[in-house]
Structures are given as structure tokens and as C-alpha cells.
């Protein structure tokens, strides 16, 4: 059987990590390539990069980082942030990323998903979803609404309907971020994750709210997530990826334990 994946997420702004990452060696590092290398060595199953600024200058810097990361780690990684065209995707893939994540751009321009999947295969296209809990209404029957631009703009689009549509357009995977849970470190949004994951046939990565290993256990079991994104809990050296995987493995969740 497949192992569940643990995926550290690195936010990059103009070529630097937005928050210094603290490793066991007790050094703060702002270098995304070095951080990727460390997580690779700690047993990360995949790595996600978000380019926060994504101005055209910083995109060139990002491409250079992608190239260096591809030489430093021998596991898959994805890159998101500011990708608006198939040409943007091509540059990132040729630089060495396996996957591209599209978020606001896909909501505004859904055919981007289809064009990307046609050009590079569905396995390359990850749909990033930022979701907020709202009142159930005829427009939002699931009670979860898509928000874009880093959670600032409500779209009036139902999250579940959008997940299904994106799947049919050719998205190969969904990275599902709960705006309500994000940054709380109080646990993932289990109901949302389970709802989306059980209604699509592509893998779902849960994101937002991870603070301790039990949260990952819950989202990977009750939440039916195929993978879990983590940030603060490993960036600030509260846990290593190995600690987390060892715990989850002891809870009967299949993990990749040799790397």
C-alpha cells in the first residue's frame, strides 16, 4: 500500500525563506536550497515551495532556486505562486520541479488547469485551494467557500464544486488549505478535508493547522487525507520529520521509514 506523505512547505520571498528556519544544529537559515536539503535528509516525502511575492524579478530568482533544489534533493517537489500561463509552468518544470501548484490563477482562469495537464500531464498540476467555512447557502451548499489572493477575496464559489470541476479539468492532486485553521497550530480542518477527499478521486494534501503529530494522525485517518503539509512545527524545530513519522508509524499509519 501507499505510504502517507509528509510534506514540509517553504515560503519564499525574493529568493529567501520568509521566516528563518531553525534546525537541530541550532542555526537560522534563510536559504531555501539548504532548507530543502535538510528536510530531504530528515525524511520528507516531498517538498512544496510557495513564491510569495512572485513579481517578475523574483520569478527569475525562483527559477534559479528551483534549479539548485533539483540538484540538491532526489525526491519530488512542487512550486506555486504567481504561475499564470503554461509558459510559466514550463520554465518551472524545465528547471527541475515535478509539480506546479496553481491557486488564485486557476479560479480566475480555469482552462489553465486543462492546458497545463495537456502540456505536462495531470500528475504535474496541483490545485491549491484556500477555503473558508461559511453559512450554507444555495450558492455555497457545502458551507465552504473558495477564497483567493491569500484569503482576502471571497469568490462566491463552492469549494467542493470547484474541487470536482478542477479534477474534471485535469488537476492531478489537490492541496487543500483551511484559512480558518491556518497558523493556529490547533489541528487541521478534519471535516473539510474528509469532505473533499471522499468526493474526488485524486490525492488530497491537507494543509493548515498542524501543531503536533496527533493532528497529522487525525487528518490522515479521519480526514482521509493522502498527505499532510507541515510548516511551523518543523521550521521552529519543535519536531523533526523523523519524530513525526515515527509517531505516525506507531499509530498504524503507513509511512516511508527508510531514506
Amino acid at each position, binding site marked *: *500500500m*501507499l*505510504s*502517507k*506523505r509528509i510534506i514540509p512547505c517553504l515560503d519564499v520571498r525574493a529568493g529567501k525563506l520568509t521566516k528563518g528556519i531553525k534546525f537541530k544544529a541550532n542555526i537560522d537559515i534563510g536559504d531555501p536550497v539548504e532548507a530543502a536539503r535538510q528536510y*530531504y535528509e530528515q525524511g520528507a*516525502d516531498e517538498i512544496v515551495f510557495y513564491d510569495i511575492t512572485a513579481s517578475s524579478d523574483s520569478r527569475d530568482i525562483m527559477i534559479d532556486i528551483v534549479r539548485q533544489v*533539483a*540538484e540538491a534533493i*532526489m*525526491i*519530488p517537489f512542487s512550486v506555486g505562486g504567481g504561475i499564470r500561463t503554461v509558459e510559466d509552468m514550463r520554465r518551472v*518544470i*524545465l528547471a*527541475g520541479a*515535478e509539480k506546479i501548484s496553481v491557486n488564485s490563477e486557476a479560479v480566475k482562469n480555469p482552462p489553465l488547469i486543462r492546458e497545463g495537464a495537456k502540456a*505536462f*500531464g*495531470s*500528475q504535474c498540476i496541483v490545485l491549491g485551494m484556500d477555503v473558508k467555512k461559511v453559512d450554507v447557502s444555495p450558492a455555497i451548499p457545502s458551507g465552504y467557500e473558495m477564497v483567493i489572493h491569500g484569503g482576502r477575496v471571497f469568490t462566491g464559489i463552492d469549494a467542493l464544486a470547484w474541487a470536482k470541476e478542477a479534477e474534471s479539468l485535469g488537476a*492531478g*492532486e489537490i492541496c487543500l488549505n483551511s484559512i480558518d485553521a491556518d497558523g493556529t497550530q490547533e489541528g487541521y480542518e478534519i471535516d473539510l478535508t474528509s469532505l473533499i477527499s*471522499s468526493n474526488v*478521486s*485524486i*490525492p488530497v494534501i491537507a494543509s493548515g493547522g498542524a501543531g503536533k503529530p496527533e493532528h497529522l494522525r487525525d487528518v490522515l485517518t479521519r480526514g*482521509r487525507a*493522502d*498527505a499532510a503539509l507541515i510548516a511551523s512545527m518543523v521550521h521552529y524545530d519543535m519536531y523533526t520529520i523523523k519524530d513525526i513519522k515515527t509517531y505516525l508509524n506507531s499509530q498504524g499509519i503507513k509511512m*516511508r*521509514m*527508510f*531514506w
Partner: protein
Amino acid sequence: MIAIIDYQAGNLTSVYRALRWLKQDCQITRDYEVLNSASHIIFPGVGAAGEAMAHLRQTGLDGVIVRLAQEGKPLLGICLGTQIIFDYSEENDTPCLGILPGEVKRFPDDMAYDGLRLKIPHMGWNSVSFRGDHPVFRGIPANAEFYFVHSFFPQPKRKENVLGTTSYGIEFSSAVGSENVVAVQFHPEKSGKPGLMLLENFCRWRGTDAE
């Protein structure tokens, strides 16, 4: 020199990077002379069988690959490259190279595990039970896992061509081969240490079982 066959199918550079990591002399090429002078051939690929075969036929690379395999040069298929060496793929109803007898099938839609429907593609890390003691898989620990991304899987006609199996709803052949040909459904170039071990073993292999 290790030649990586360039046929415009997917991420060739990741195989190149993994070989460079192993300090191997390697080249991405479609040039017959270069392929012919290489010590080893890697046939990678991400994409769809129909398009890939059409491209191989157009460029005449289809015949070249079959000949290289027949000449006894060690050849490693990866993912789509592995599927294409069989007779036929259900994907796009595609006749393939026929280097190994057998077919490529799609995972059934209704697979389940623990009461939950299994997702397709089979994407992520899974283990492989290797059979026998093939030199290319030697030394890889039993708990090693490899990175998979695929919706189709090879089904060799002959049992002796199955070198390893993986379980995902069904038990399928994730490593196959015969004589100088070894082919894997997963991506060794993206599978961390065990993948690198496999690639290093392949680069050392002379193309026979008895080493």
C-alpha cells in the same frame, strides 16, 4: 557513458541530475551514433503511451531501441519507458515496442482498501518485493520505498519476466526484465537513497544475471 534516450517525453533532466549526483558520465541524446557507443541505455518517460510511440515511430527511434536491446547493451526502462517496451498498452490503444511479451493495463476504477476507494493515479511512495537476486536490485533494503506516479501498469506474459511486485488494490509488476533489460514502473531518480542505489547498480551492471 550512460545514454538517456531523448524522445520528448517528460522530465529527462531529473534522470540526468540523479546520474550526475552519482558522478556518472551521461548524456541526453537521440543520436544513433552516441546511443550505439554508450555502455548503458536509460529509457525514461512521463506522459501518454500513444503520443510517445507516435514520436518514436516518426523519428525512427523505435527500431533503434529494439536493436539496442537485442544487442545486449544494459537497458533500463523507467515509468512510461517501461510500459512502452511491452507489446501493447491499453492507454490510447497503442501497439508498443514488443521487447518484452505482455500488455499494459489500467488500474480498475473500483479498487478499495480498508473500505475506502483507492485513488488513481497511484501516486506516492510504495514498497517493492523484489524476486530473486538481480544485480540491479542488490543491496536495497526490504523496507525501501520508491516514488510512483501512474494509472497504467505492466502485465508481463511470462512469469520469469517479473522481477518485483507492488501492492495497490491489486498486486502488479513494478519491476520487470529479461537478460540485459531491466525496467521499473517507479521513478528511481526521485526515490531518494534506494533509487540512487538502484541507478548506481545499473551503471555497474554488465547486462547479465550472473555477476
